């Protein structure tokens, strides 16, 4: 928080500060209030109403329908539930793949760039960060070209003898494809007969579709640069002494990285994971520009489904409900991630490993204390 300033703020030089304070923050409060807070509350009302898309949602013709919209999406048994289940599945796989990969890639790039000599460092940093600067629309257009059936990526793959898939037109799940390599074509009936949110468990476990995978690659490409910068800054802020001490003690590079550097990066890691999670659950721009949910609804995401339900299908209540459920999902994931990464004490097993040296250090200390005491 702010540095302490003189407490005499109501008189003398601090006169009129309160008024200025409110005046200065007024524009921000008004703008954010009107365009952020009010819309959220409005959306909340729409999700509990039957507003059809014509005129104001607060007019007399609009009725309160309780949880109807939510139950249609979560348990209705119809297409709405299926579509929502599908979109959740697609986005969940997207998150599961993108967040760890982009974090690992960003960290890897940061470590590499940090080690390079000065002259090259700026160039590499720029090269890796540049994709993050471009707009998602521009990158999607580029990606549609690169990953088309006869596009650049498949051409490069063919140099290695691999027949590239039809990327953006292939709705088959990559886990299913992988299992298919071993001859597993259909799942066990326990998985195919039972479903969650209208999507069978076999499909839930099918992984992202090939089309979605192309989007996963795009996400890693465009956001690893940003997080790389974060890691570089954090790495540069680490003192070199601990690392030197570890080198003195004989730790090799790998051990140094895992035991010394990584734990110290915990706060940054935390930030990167949180931002990654929040961002990945809101994929909209690229779907709108690119595939709009095709092929086979495997690139449908809750954010895009919310837009489509409202603006195209005129199901405004459902669209708003989807948005709020997504909000809850994001909050839950963030809290879960916080809990997983919380600071924990050193485990008992580790303690026992270090016990001899700690005991020795203790004894040395008490010896010293005794001798000091004896001197008195």
């Amino acid at each position: 928080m702010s540095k302490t300033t003189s407490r005499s703020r109501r008189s003398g030089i601090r006169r009129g500060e309160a008024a200025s304070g409110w005046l200065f923050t007024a524009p921000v409060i008004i703008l954010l209030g009107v365009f952020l807070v009010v819309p959220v509350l409005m959306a909340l009302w729409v999700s509990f109403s039957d507003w059809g898309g014509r005129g104001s949602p607060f007019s007399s013709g609009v009725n309160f329908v309780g949880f109807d919209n939510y139950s249609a999406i979560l348990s209705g048994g119809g297409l709405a539930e299926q579509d929502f289940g599908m979109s959740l599945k697609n986005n969940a796989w997207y998150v599961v793949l993108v967040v760890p990969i982009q974090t690992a890639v960003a960290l890897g790039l940061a470590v590499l760039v940090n080690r390079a000599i000065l002259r090259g460092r700026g160039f590499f940093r720029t090269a890796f960060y540049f994709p993050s600067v471009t707009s998602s629309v521009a990158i999607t257009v580029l990606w549609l070209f690169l990953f088309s059936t006869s596009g650049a990526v498949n051409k490069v793959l063919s140099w290695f003898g691999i027949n590239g898939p039809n990327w953006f037109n292939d709705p088959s799940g990559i886990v299913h494809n992988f299992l298919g390599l071993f001859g597993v074509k259909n799942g066990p009936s326990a998985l195919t007969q039972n479903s969650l949110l209208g999507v069978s468990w076999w499909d839930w476990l099918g992984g992202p579709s090939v089309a979605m995978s192309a989007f996963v690659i795009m996400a890693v490409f465009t956001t690893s640069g940003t997080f790389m910068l974060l890691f570089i800054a954090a790495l540069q802020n680490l003192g070199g002494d601990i690392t030197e001490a570890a080198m003195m003690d004989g730790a090799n590079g790998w051990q140094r990285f895992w035991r010394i550097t990584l734990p110290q990066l915990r706060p940054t890691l935390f930030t990167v994971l949180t931002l990654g999670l929040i961002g990945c659950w809101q994929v909209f721009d690229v779907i709108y520009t690119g595939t709009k949910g095709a092929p086979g609804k495997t690139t449908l995401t809750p954010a895009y489904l919310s837009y489509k339900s409202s603006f195209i299908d005129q199901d405004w209540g459902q669209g708003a409900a989807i948005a709020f459920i997504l909000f809850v999902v994001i909050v839950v994931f963030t809290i879960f991630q916080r809990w997983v990464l919380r600071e924990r004490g050193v485990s008992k097993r580790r303690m026992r490993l270090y016990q001899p040296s700690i005991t020795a250090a203790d004894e040395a200390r008490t010896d010293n204390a005794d001798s000091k005491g004896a001197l008195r």
Partner: protein
Amino acid sequence: MQRPTHRWLAGGAVAVATALALTACGSGFSGSGSSDGASGKLTSSDKALTVMIGSSGDAETAAVKSAVSDWSKSDGTKASVIAASDLNQQLSQGFAAKKPADVFYLSTDALAGYASNGSLLAYGDQLSNKSDFYPSLVKSFTYDGKFYCAPKDFSTLQLIINTDMWSAAGLTDSDIPKTWDQLQAVVKKLTGAGHVGLGISGEYARIGSFMTQAGGNLMNEDSTKATANSDANVKALDYVKTLLNDGDLKYAKDLGAGWGGEAFGKGLAAMTIEGNWITGALKSDFPNVKYKVAELPEGPAGKGTLQFTNCWGIAADSPNQAAALKLVEKLTSKDDQLAFSKAFGPMPSIKSAADAWKSANPELVPFLSAADYAKGVPTAKGSADVVTDLNSKLESLATGDPKTILDATQKNLEALLK
């Protein structure tokens, strides 16, 4: 953090509530159920008209603009044309803002949604040329017993044949398939190096033509009953599945094309099933491909194909509906429709223009012949979504089970009608 006193939390809540109330009592919230031209009375004013279209390209935009400005000059009411980049979304926003376009393209998919929330004016019965429209088209735009809007044109699906590949395979005019078995034999002959016999977009909007030839369709004529899992439809899907597994029919996506017309134009398929719009696409993108249009073969129940149509919708909130109606009457007149057809392809929706069109387009006559037996796509509210779902299942038709696919579709359609 300083202790946020209860006073301040309360103050914050009051502020938010005030903001809400202010916006609620503000200008636009006079949403008291406004009368929407009830009892056939049309609104009239001297406001300019806006016409919103979802254009297929420069040719269409230019043609519509010219027709509208001609009317504007003769009628004296100003009118402007907007080519929407996302027609559905822009229409939605217009309706929600109560400032919609006055006249706009309306597809069969969108009719039910907008009609049910009161955004449309049901002016069909007030058209002076009402009896001239093809009955099946009128049915496509009748919702809840009311004829909502004037069909502006229509297209049907037929078989497009690459004449060079046709003759290279040793086939002649007498070999044009008239039955399913003949079609199966012909595509086998046409499949060769680098091209497949038949390449189509793998969606209901094409595969459905086979359903109609077997005597079925997803719903009945006025979309009040779901008939998706009928035996006829299963038979049709079985037939398509056989062709797929034989390797003689391939989906456009699997050929690396965006749609059947592109696969055809690029020479990846010797035949395709497409509608009138393919003529314009081939002319501009693939001018060197020589083709012929033939009627699709008869299935177990005879001839059948799908038709696609759009209408000119008029907004219930339009301040100048009277002028809008006059504009629509002109735009659906014989001369205008023939001009549109010449510019970008679809066929006139009125019977009186049929002969003129046939003589102007002798090689495209099969498209118009289908007017006698073509069936429309479902128009129940939410059916577009069900069709999208069906399409995603059809993508794996080669390895899937038609009955299962159609049962799921039947279930979804029945849910709409509850």
